[in-house]
């Protein structure tokens, strides 16, 4: 079912790409032409992204060292499962998955052995993880690919896996430079379906971070989680958004302003209003949305619709500024093919509504 949906969407995107490209070529007006070409590039990116939506189910939390990834995760999971990593330690991501009992499993890069330990309590998990991190120094176990922590946590019940990734960006001791980030990059490329990028409110977004975003996970990241917003007014949040939104151009991510600490405390006190105030509830909803393939497809659809809206707004403005001189922006026969193809497709109809040239 999901697979079909995904194929349908892929076809729609292909059709849209053809419509936009053909029209861009047909269009005599240089400005319109260049905007259409820009749109077609954006669509091509979406198309590439569709290819990796498939069967992955790992949501990764990524960010600089010490921005509060672990606190955020703990607030989400409702248990202090994620250890505080102080300073860069292992280069391996830590996955949280559902299991009936507490259990830690270590996966190696090139070894069949997959040591696993049952744990009594969270304390024991932390000790085990610390031991794994210490071992990572010696050559035999250096190539830990990932560590999986299983626990009976409700959020994880329907197959969702949330991954805590090692922080990037801190200067590395000599010799280790780069290896760390290469491993993270590979993991994000191969295993992860969606990235939540954690930034610290008071730090903002730095140049190096942004470059890392562009190179490593820009394609699978629609969400920026701004942590440490304990005392931020709505006005400050809006200014934050505006200040950093410029850097993202057409692929505008959503900003979630949260407070991991407040969330953690609210979680411990079973205070749902507090949890909501800390922004955790909304974030949880968003994650649930992305858990299944349908949710991710919906996310892509949103991006498509957003693009269509942007395109329409630009075209309408352009036309109005020139007193209606731009009657049609689609190549007529391309448009008729677009409208004839797959008539019962919901997303296509919504796109058509946005894209249709008004009289």
């Amino acid at each position, binding site marked *: 079912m999901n697979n079909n949906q995904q194929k349908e969407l*892929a*076809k729609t995107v*292909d*059709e849209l*790409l*053809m419509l936009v*490209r*053909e029209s*861009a*070529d047909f269009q005599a007006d240089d400005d319109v032409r260049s905007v259409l*070409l820009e749109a*077609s*590039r954006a669509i*091509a990116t979406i198309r*590439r992204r569709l*290819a*990796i939506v498939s069967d992955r189910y790992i949501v990764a939390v990524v960010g*600089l*060292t*010490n921005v509060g990834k672990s606190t955020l995760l703990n607030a989400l999971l409702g248990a202090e499962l994620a250890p505080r990593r*102080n*300073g*860069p330690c292992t280069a391996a991501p830590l996955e949280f998955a559902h299991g009936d009992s507490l259990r830690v499993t270590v996966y190696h890069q090139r070894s069949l052995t997959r040591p696993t330990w049952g744990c009594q309590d969270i304390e024991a998990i932390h000790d085990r993880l610390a031991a794994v991190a210490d071992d990572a120094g010696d050559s035999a176990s250096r190539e830990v690919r990932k560590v999986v922590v299983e626990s009976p946590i409700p959020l994880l019940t329907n197959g969702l896996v949330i991954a805590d990734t090692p922080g990037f*960006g*801190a*200067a590395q*001791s*000599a010799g280790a430079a780069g290896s760390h980030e290469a491993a993270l990059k590979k993991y994000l490329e191969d295993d992860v379906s969606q990235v939540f990028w954690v930034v*610290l*409110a*008071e*730090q*903002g*977004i*730095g*140049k*190096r971070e*942004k470059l890392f975003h562009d190179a490593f996970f820009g394609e699978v990241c629609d969400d920026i989680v701004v942590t440490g917003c304990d005392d*931020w007014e709505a006005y*400050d949040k809006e*200014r*934050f958004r505006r*200040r*950093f939104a410029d*850097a993202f151009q057409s692929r505008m991510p959503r900003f979630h302003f949260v407070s991991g600490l407040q969330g953690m405390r609210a979680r411990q006190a079973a205070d749902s209003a507090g949890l909501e105030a800390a922004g955790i509830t909304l974030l949880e909803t968003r994650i649930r949305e992305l858990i299944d393939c349908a949710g991710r497809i919906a996310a892509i659809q949103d991006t498509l619709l957003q693009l269509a809206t942007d395109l329409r707004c630009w075209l309408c403005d352009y036309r109005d500024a020139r007193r209606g001189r731009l009657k049609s922006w689609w190549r007529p*026969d391309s448009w008729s*093919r677009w409208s*004839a*193809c*797959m008539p019962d497709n919901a997303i296509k109809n919504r796109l058509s509504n946005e894209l249709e040239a008004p009289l």
Partner: protein
Amino acid sequence: MDITSASQRRELIDWAKQVLSTLGERRDETAVRGVSQAINGLLSDRFCLAALGKAKRGKSTLLNAILGRSDDMVAPVDKLPASSAISRFRWCDTERATVVFRDGRQEQIGFDRVREFVTEEFNNENAKGVDVVEIEGSFTGLDHNLELVDTPGAGSIHEHHDAILHAFIPNADAVIFLVTARMPLDQDELDLLQKVKAADIRKVFFAMNRVDESGEQDIADAIAHNMRLLSQAGVHVDRMHRISAKAAFDGDMTGSGVAALMEEISTFLAANKGRVLSTRFVSRISAAVEPISQAIEVEVASSRKTVGELDAELDTLRHEKTEVDFERAFAEREFSMSWSKAIDAYERGLKEAKTEVTAVVMNKVHRASVFEVSNLAKQLPSILTQTIEEHLRPIASRFEESARESCDRLQASYPALNVGDAGSVALRTRNGHTAITGTVGGVAVATVGVGFAVAGAATAASIAAANAAAVAVASATVAAPSILSGLLSLAGLEILAPLATGTATFAAPAALTTMPLWVALAGPIGWTLAGVGVLAVPFSWHLSKLKMKDRIEEACEKQINEVFGRLQTERLPAICNMGKAITEEIRLRLDRQLAQIEAALVAARDRRPSESEAAQLAELGTRLRGLLAHYSNTTSPQRSIDYR
């Protein structure tokens, strides 16, 4: 030991003027400007202490605290990165703020308007063109001989902040470097410290700010971690102050640790101010005339050599060239072999893929019922594109991978010119380094960089710049993707000509025209396939008019043939040529460099300065060197003060 007493100062200034007059007609505008700026700075007798650090480390807050302000009017603070310009703070009994614009204009403003010029919020992207804001007032906490400077944070998303910051650094006499416990020291911070070091600033006060926001253990860990990284980077730190600029701003100077920091600064200034100021002065003068003095050195060096010596060097060079030829031919052959192997594999893959794609698509058409036909016709273009993509992707990525590997290997094994420290030029070969022109010094270095002609041209060019360029050229790694991207147009890959089936002509695929190649490389559909999907566009035109199943089948087959035919007849030869062009490019580069060195040597041999010219030049060089050495030796007896 205040050596900037009036007489000492006079002596230094006289010295600087003497340096300038020694240069005579060889001085240029940059040198003159640099010297006069340094003199003005020395005359003001103010010690320039700049607060540096990454964005959001609390520089402005600290300055407000030190100045004794109860508001953030003069050094605005915000939750977002705030400072976007350089502000200088000086003590004066009247309050005054002057905005100096880039175009030289000046405007007097009230303190309440400072925010309009120095913050990102109100002066976005420095649209107002502010160069610096000079703020004077009776700041209670400010030493009268101290000038404090607030700077934009490094490494923020606002790129112009870094540019402003880097341009400013040489103007500082010492630096307060702020880090925080929460954010571990990162590469941006190390880079910033390197800039400080490069500007010959020898005193850095380190402070870890915002200690009130972290636990004791975290602070201790962070300090240990930072100290380790700093010492690895060759930065020696005496003391890392723990401060809370916020608490100091709120009035608690002692408890916040800021008092202790200020104490260290005062102690340092009392003991060293004169010495640092004069050292900085000497270093600024030297930096201003360095390019000229280097140019003179090079000329002198080449004029000293006898014709025989230069001939000998030429011989060495020519001899090495034949050796290198042998080696490079080897590397080139290895490359072309692995390249064509990769192409062969690609070609085989194409053939298999074609068979498979045809089978899959035909099967689809075949199984469609009569009623589905018109729908099928509409969907076929995307079905076809997807099927082709699916089957070609693994083949293409395999090829691209091996192409990249071949390029890397070629580059690693190819001989290259390296420029050494002392201006020597070496040929890097598989067996190690061979110095080919060790003795000709800067002459060759300069030529490799910019084709600098030796005789009589030294006044026109700054050899220091030429040196830098030469190093950049010689040590630049020929990154495989950049080579490839340069060759894209060369190889004629821009456009796949539209198919004859439709009337549509379409724009070249974006991936090939506007994106650099490496971007295309990164996508799942690699550059060898870029544009294939677009072939479906005219196809969709043609197809949408067909109603009959067998006609559709026919059209599909034709389309598949067309796509694969083009890959075979256009893309493959282009890729073949690309391999040749890569070898040619790398060969040409080395040849050009070697030819330039040879030409420089010949020029040095044939156009000898007359005896008296050479003597004059040598005399000038010696005088200048003597002058420059005079203070460099006497003013820094303890060269490694605190910060190396």
